[in-house]
């Protein structure tokens, strides 16, 4: 066991996940080691079927690995009881999904405060935090709207606000821009940048290169394996003008 388990927020060691049994089984995740530091934004990019969503589910305790370990904030979570794991899912990790997964019969603010209520906050604290988050995400005026009355970009903002409302250690996002046009995608990227600046740890799996490119680190995933790591922070390519041939 490397020392990193002690200093990283989220770690995977020799992580495996098989779907099915025997000859016909598929190795969705096939030996992944990963260390994610506090405040880091990490992207995992790969084609559909490469195992990236399964990996995210294993990291967030939505699914259990066939082998290997998952450590969250120095505590192993792959082998804990179902009850303890449910608690981890309510208090320590949050999800943002491609299809938002908002409750259609609840208003925006009710959707957002739900995660804080489930994590055990008082109704007053939950509502105050939900309203703060909606304000920070620029949709305070839509807080009483039902999801059906919101645009795709607004719905994803509500989903991100919900993910933050229980003050999780890690936010896990699965194709968060999959259903969004380019303007709304830019909004989500701005949002993630704000989260990053506020110190939130964020793991995004996506096939959208625009998201991957704005992370601190990016992993390429193929057939259940992380095949390449790119560190993207520090140093730019120089003048943007070179991109359109303006430089001589």
């Amino acid at each position, binding site marked *: 066991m490397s020392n990193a388990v002690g200093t990283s927020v989220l770690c995977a060691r020799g992580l495996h996940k098989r779907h099915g049994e025997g000859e016909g089984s598929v190795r969705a995740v096939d030996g992944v080691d990963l260390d994610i530091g506090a405040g880091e934004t990490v992207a995992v990019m790969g084609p559909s079927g490469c195992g990236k969503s399964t990996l995210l589910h294993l990291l967030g305790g939505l699914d259990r690995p066939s082998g290997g370990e998952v450590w969250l904030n120095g505590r192993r979570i792959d082998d804990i009881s179902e009850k303890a794991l449910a608690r981890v899912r309510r208090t320590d990790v949050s999800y943002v999904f491609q299809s938002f997964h908002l409750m259609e019969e609840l208003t925006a603010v009710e959707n957002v405060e739900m995660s804080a209520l489930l994590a055990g906050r008082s109704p007053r604290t939950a509502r105050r935090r939900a309203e703060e988050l909606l304000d920070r995400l620029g949709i305070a005026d839509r807080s009483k709207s039902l999801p059906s009355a919101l645009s795709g970009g607004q719905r994803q903002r509500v989903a991100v606000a919900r993910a933050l409302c229980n003050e999780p250690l890690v936010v896990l996002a699965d194709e968060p821009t999959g259903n969004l046009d380019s303007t709304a995608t830019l909004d989500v990227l701005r949002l993630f940048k704000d989260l990053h600046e506020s110190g939130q740890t964020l793991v995004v799996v996506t096939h959208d290169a625009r998201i991957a490119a704005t992370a601190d680190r990016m992993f390429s995933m193929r057939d259940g394996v992380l095949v390449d790591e*790119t560190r*993207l922070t520090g140093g730019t390519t120089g003048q943007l*003008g070179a991109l359109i041939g303006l430089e001589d």
Partner: protein
Amino acid sequence: MQQEVVLAMLAKEPSHGYQLRARLRDALGPLGEAMNAGHIYVTLTRLEKAGLLAVERSAGGADRPDRKVYTLTPDGQQRVAEWIAEVSWPRPDLAEFHLKLIAAASGGLADPLAIVDAQRRELLRRLRDTQLAAMAEPDGSNAALLLEGIALRLQADLRWLEACEKNWTKRRNGS
């Protein structure tokens, strides 16, 4: 900077050099930072010699470049109209990269997959710069639209690299 671009920026009205530069800056945003002011004045002088624009000194009469007002001549207007109507599109040079992979593999010079990886890192860095610039632009600005175009082209290039990777992985495993 292409001569026609400078010419076309004068089509709205006779302008000082600094007004012309301000129009370019607004259109290009952070992408215009590479623009060289001296180069634009050289281009203006060339266009004047070619009879495509005329120069008047504004009141004060001093011979400083920023006192000059540039106006399109009828020939200049004609040239701008032709340029606007022209259909042209920058040609990406994909063949060079393609041939690099083939030469590297056939001559045993390098691993084509390592070349693809290095290229992908570079494109991701460019995409990152482009996205960071786009995120800093207000929605609907001129520069935001241009940055979106650059991001889309880089994404297309990245998808082609994915195809290159798949293909060369298959060749390596198959041979």
